[in-house]
Each structure stands twice: as structure tokens, then as C-alpha cells.
């Protein structure tokens, strides 16, 4: 069968740092400084390859999951496939209309009503007016927003916006549908509905590229998966094999995970040396949700800071604070005196607590009722995954910020 997507030697290089001329003055200045060099030829030192030598093919009707950690090149690949950005090298053949859902609600305007946004969004995604009119009732019914159709979207809840946006995109009927992390938002019922819709789409013989770092979602709808690592294809095959491979190798792929401090993570009184995460004595950032793990913080106290307290704020991928912990809660002598010296704090986080997904930790030190000595946002990043797909795994799909494994002790009181 002829592939519907063929990708050959795809690469994308981004320029980083202050090389791009964002003001006319810089452009003129650099032209004056080196008049014989063209604008394009910049030193290779300031470029990174977000994607390098990626090749694969997808057959019509296949549902392929693209997995990989943040920064593995997933979104760059999608941006090239949906023609938002051009590749630096390589080529792609697409044999059908591409509908991309890179971020639901793109093009939704808060001042416009739901009805107006459906038409506008549909047109932006490539539908004709007649097509939108034909599917309008179906879209609205799917999104369950009938009674708010003539209300400006700014009065909608975020869940309603997502539902409406997904509904428009799901009814696009392209031959190739690209979906990126849509299921991370919305309530569980709606997620089920979206998965159902995507299954329906594939039964109609359309091809879906589904990008996610939620293995459970990828496992449940994709027969095949491609694992991206540092911009290249690390593994491609049956989804179950690829996810197993990813979990087996995640330590090799991501260790040693040590976050080096950035210049602003240091103040006169305290500086951060490193932060890393250990699970089962291995440095990693892929956390098995069943087992406990330890966050190590290595820091230097330069001046005595009496009454100060370290805190760690952990947020999930949606930006919600999952918990905040502090060494002030369970007082130690070190925390009490906070004398100068180099210290290592270990924070033990129990297993069977967190939901699957990405987490970001911010670290800081403050003095109660006085001031924040320093704060470093998103210093730590880790992904929690569920190793087995069994009954215990369903707790990750229930509502709630965490999914603790709690004991239920039940005794019979009367017959």
C-alpha cells in the first residue's frame, strides 16, 4: 500500500541566542560590521538541531503515536508536517488534506460568540462555509454547548472552550489528523468522548498522528508508535513494545539528571549547586508511580539565615500546584540554625501518590513573615508514568490532582 505520509531525512535547525535581527538597527549594524557576509550565514555555534535525520512512513488508516519527552522534537515534527514551519533538510510527502490540532482553541476570539467562533475556527482549519453549515448542529451537539451559542466565548469556562474547539477540529474530516495533547485538558467524561471520536475517525479509514507523553492514552488508541529522542527516531514499532522500550531505557536516556543552577539561582546569602532525582538508587526523571523517589538538593549557605525555610512547590503540566513542602514542617537542627556551609537536603516522596504526567518543581528559601531570600522557578522536572496497565492504573483517569493508593479497611458490622 502506498504510504499516506512519507518522511525522509527530515531535519530542522533553530538559531538560538541573539543572532536573529529583531530590530532594524541590529541588522544595519551587522551589515556595516561585516558587509560581505550574508544575513543567513551565522556561525553553527548558535544553532541547535531540534530534529535530525528523521525518516518514517505511515500507511493510510493507521493511528500512530509520537512519544518522547519534552524537547525530543515532537512539536517540531508536527509543525513541519502541518506546514507551519519549513524543514532545514529532508522532505515530506503527504497524500491528503492535513488537519492539525496543535492547540485547541487557536483562533478562538474571546469577544466573539460560540457560533461565530465555530465558523471562524472552521475556516482557519480549512473548512468551507458550506461544510461548516452542514456540520454545525453536529459540532454543537458534540461540544454540549447549545444553550451558550450566542454568548461571547469570554464568558465560557475553559472546559467549554476546549470542548467546542475539539468538536470543530474533530469534524474537519481531513485525511490526516494531527492531534497534540488535546486530551490533557477537559474532564474525564469528555476525554472518553474524544477518544471515542478519534476511534470513529480511524474506522472511517483516516490517518491519525497522536502526540502525547501520556502512555495510557497512546496505548489505548495507537497500534504503532514512534519514539523520538533528542530529535531522532529512537524506536518505532508496536505501541506496547515502544512504550516498554521507553520505560526500560528511560534511565539511560535521561540520566544523569542533574539540573545545573542558572546564574539567577544564586544570591549573596545562598546558592544552589544542583538538584537531582533518585528512584531505586538511580538518577532519573522518569518516575515509576508505584515506587517512592527522592529529590536531592545540594546548596550552599553563605550567611547565617535564622528562621529561614526551604520550600518546594510542585506543579503538574496544567500548572496547578499539587503540593508545597517545606523543611519547616518537620523541624531539623539544620533548618533551625541555618548556619553557613554546604548542605544536601533529601525529600522523600512516597510511591502511589502522584498521577501520571509531567511535573515541575520550583525551589525557594524564605524567612517567615519577612522576605523571600531566593526562588528558582521550574528547577526540577520529572515525568510520572504507570508501569502496568491494570486495574490500579485506572485511578490516574479519575478526577482529582493526585491519585493516592490508599488502604480501605472494611470490616463487616452486621449480617
Amino acid at each position, binding site marked *: 500500500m502506498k504510504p499516506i505520509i512519507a518522511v525522509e531525512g527530515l531535519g530542522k535547525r533553530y538559531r538560538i541566542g541573539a543572532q536573529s535581527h529583531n530590530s532594524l538597527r541590529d541588522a544595519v549594524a551587522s551589515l556595516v560590521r561585516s558587509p560581505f557576509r550574508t544575513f543567513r550565514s551565522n556561525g553553527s555555534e548558535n544553532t541547535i538541531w531540534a530534529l535530525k535525520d528523521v525518516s518514517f512512513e505511515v500507511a493510510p488508516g493507521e493511528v500512530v503515536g509520537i512519544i518522547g519527552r519534552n524537547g525530543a522534537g515532537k512539536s517540531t515534527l508536527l509543525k513541519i508536517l502541518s506546514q507551519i514551519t519549513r524543514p532545514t533538510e529532508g*522532505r515530506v*510527502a503527504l497524500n491528503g488534506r492535513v488537519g492539525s490540532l496543535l492547540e485547541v482553541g487557536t483562533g478562538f476570539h474571546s469577544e466573539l460568540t460560540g457560533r461565530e467562533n465555530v465558523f471562524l475556527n472552521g475556516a482557519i482549519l480549512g473548512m468551507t462555509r458550506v461544510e461548516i453549515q452542514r456540520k454545525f448542529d453536529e459540532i454543537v451537539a458534540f461540544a454540549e454547548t447549545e444553550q451558550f451559542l450566542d454568548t461571547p466565548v469570554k464568558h465560557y469556562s475553559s472546559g467549554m472552550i476546549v470542548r467546542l474547539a475539539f468538536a470543530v477540529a474533530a469534524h474537519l474530516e481531513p485525511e490526516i489528523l494531527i492531534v497534540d495533547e488535546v486530551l490533557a485538558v477537559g474532564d474525564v467524561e469528555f476525554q472518553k468522548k474524544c477518544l471515542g471520536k478519534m476511534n470513529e475517525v480511524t474506522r472511517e479509514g483516516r490517518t491519525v498522528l497522536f502526540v502525547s507523553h501520556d502512555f495510557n492514552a497512546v496505548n489505548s488508541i495507537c497500534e504503532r508508535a514512534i519514539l523520538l529522542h533528542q530529535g531522532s527516531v*529512537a524506536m518505532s514499532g508496536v505501541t506496547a513494545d515502544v512504550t516498554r522500550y521507553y520505560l526500560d531505557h528511560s534511565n539511560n536516556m535521561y540520566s544523569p539528571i542533574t539540573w545545573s543552577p542558572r546564574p539567577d539561582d544564586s544570591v549573596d546569602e545562598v546558592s544552589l549547586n544542583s538538584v537531582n532525582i533518585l528512584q531505586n538508587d538511580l538518577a532519573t526523571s522518569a518516575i515509576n508511580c508505584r515506587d517512592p523517589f527522592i529529590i536531592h538538593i545540594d546548596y550552599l549557605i553563605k550567611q547565617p539565615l535564622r528562621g529561614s525555610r526551604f520550600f518546594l512547590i510542585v506543579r503538574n503540566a496544567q500548572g496547578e500546584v499539587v503540593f508545597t513542602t517545606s523543611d519547616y514542617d518537620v523541624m531539623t537542627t539544620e533548618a533551625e540554625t541555618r548556619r553557613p556551609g554546604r548542605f544536601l537536603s533529601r525529600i522523600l516522596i512516597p510511591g502511589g501518590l502522584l498521577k501520571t504526567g509531567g511535573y515541575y518543581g520550583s525551589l525557594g528559601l524564605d524567612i517567615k513573615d519577612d522576605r523571600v531570600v531566593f526562588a528558582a522557578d521550574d528547577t526540577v522536572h520529572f515525568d510520572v508514568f504507570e508501569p502496568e496497565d491494570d486495574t490500579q492504573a485506572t485511578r490516574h483517569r479519575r478526577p482529582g490532582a493526585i491519585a493516592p493508593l490508599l488502604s480501605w479497611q472494611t470490616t463487616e458490622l452486621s449480617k
Partner: protein
Amino acid sequence: MKTTESHTNLTTPATSGSKLETSSTVDVFADAKILIDSRDSALGLHLRELWSYRELLYFLTWRDIKLRYKQTVLGATWVIIQPLFTMLLFTLIFGKLARMPSDNVPYPLFAYAGLVPWTFFSNAITNSGQSLVGNSNLISKVYFPRIYIPAGAVGAGLLDFAIASLLLGPMLFYYKISLTSQVLLLPFFAVLATALALGVGMWLAALNVKYRDIRYAIPFLVQLWLFASPVIYPASIVPPKWKWVLAINPLTGVIEGFRSAILGTPLDRTSALVSVIVTFIILVLSFFAFRRVEDSFADVV
């Protein structure tokens, strides 16, 4: 690249489960419906694709119109207020105080007939010049021919243009000036004004993505352009020695033409012709320039 050594573990990918039969890749790329190739010179204009997305122009124009007057108290009345008050101001300062000649037409009418196309043009280039940067979230998330963004911004101004033109009726009636057959040329000059605004607007919009200085340069450009065009004064008062300066300004033909179509004054064919040629050149150059750079918008916006 800290993990290069561990990367060696991953270099033997076991590919399995693919439903694909071995296909000769040359075939696939030769007759692909959509081919994305890094070696593509990007000089292709993709006119067919532009046509298939034509309804988007309508939707973007409609969106810009809808949004413009939401949450404003006076709404679309602003369309009339802007040229009307400018006209009153010009009449007071240039008509009454400076006694500016106006080709034997009452000065208020003279000024308003020039201000209607001018207001359209200046708003159109300002709005389309800002349009790509203002729609950066769309550009970085969805693919569609980007040209419709500045085009939609120009298109949205056309409604204002039409509404503001309507006020010319009562003014002509008041000054007892009747329309001549020259009014039939009005659509032609409206199209010319639109084409010129589109040409300049597209170019400014593309430049603005890369050089944010353009945002500050646009108001300045608009101000200079007003004085370089026969809006306040008639082209006839310019000394013959300097006529050519006015003539190469494509807006001269548009404004003078619009005025003579309404007021029935003699039409300067030469300046109209120069305007058509210059507008055409600007439009074509700016269209090609835009198509050449639009692929990189998502990376820089």
C-alpha cells in the same frame, strides 16, 4: 548534549508492526499531493492553494469588522466621525485660515472627498501592517496562506470606506452639486485604492514580523504620506517643477481620481495612469516578497 554516551543504546531500533509494504520512496515523493521539501526554492506561488482557501479571506475580514466595534459605545459611527471631524478641522485651518484653493469646489466638500479614500488607505496600511504580529498565535499554530491576514485587514476597511462615502450624498445635495457620468469611475478608483493598500500593507506586515521597528515607523510614514498627497491641497497648486514628485506617488492618482469621479471635475489621465502602473508594480513585488518570506514567519513571530 549530556547523554551522548547513553544514546548508543538506542541506535538499533527494532522496527516491527508496520503495515507498510516496501515502497519505492521515489514514487511517493514524485506524485505526492503535498510535498514539503527543504530544497524547495519557495518561489512557487501556490496559486491553487490560495484559491482553495479563498473563503478564509471572507471570514478574516468578517472577524476584523466584528471585533473592531465590539465594546465601543459609538460602534460604527466612528467610521463617519473620523473623516467628518478631520474635514471640519481642515476646513477651519486650511479652508478658512490659510485660504487654501480647492479647484472651485467648496473646501469642505473638496477635503471630505479626499479624506474618504485617504482615511481608508491610511487605516488599511496601519491595520494590515500590524496584522501578522497581532495574529502571532494563529501563525505559530495553524497553517493557511498567511497572505489572507493582511488582506483581511484591508478588506475590513472597505466597509468603513463604503459607509464614509455615503455621507458624500447629503454633502453634494447641500452644496447643490450634481453627479456626472464620471461617477461610474468610482469603483475603478476604489479598486485601485484597495490594490495599493494591499501592496503596501502586505509589505509592511512582512517587514514588521522581522523588524519590530516598523510598528513605530508606520504612524510616521502615514503622516508623511498625508502631506505628500493632494488631500489637504489640490494637485494644481504644486509648481510644475515639483509635479513629478506628486505624480510618482501612486496615491495622487487615487485621490484626485476619486475626487473627480464624485465632483465631476476634469480627470487627470496621466496621473491616473501613473498610479495604475506604480500600484501594479508595488502589488506584484510585494506579493512575491511576501510569498518568499512567509514560510519563516512561524519561526520569528
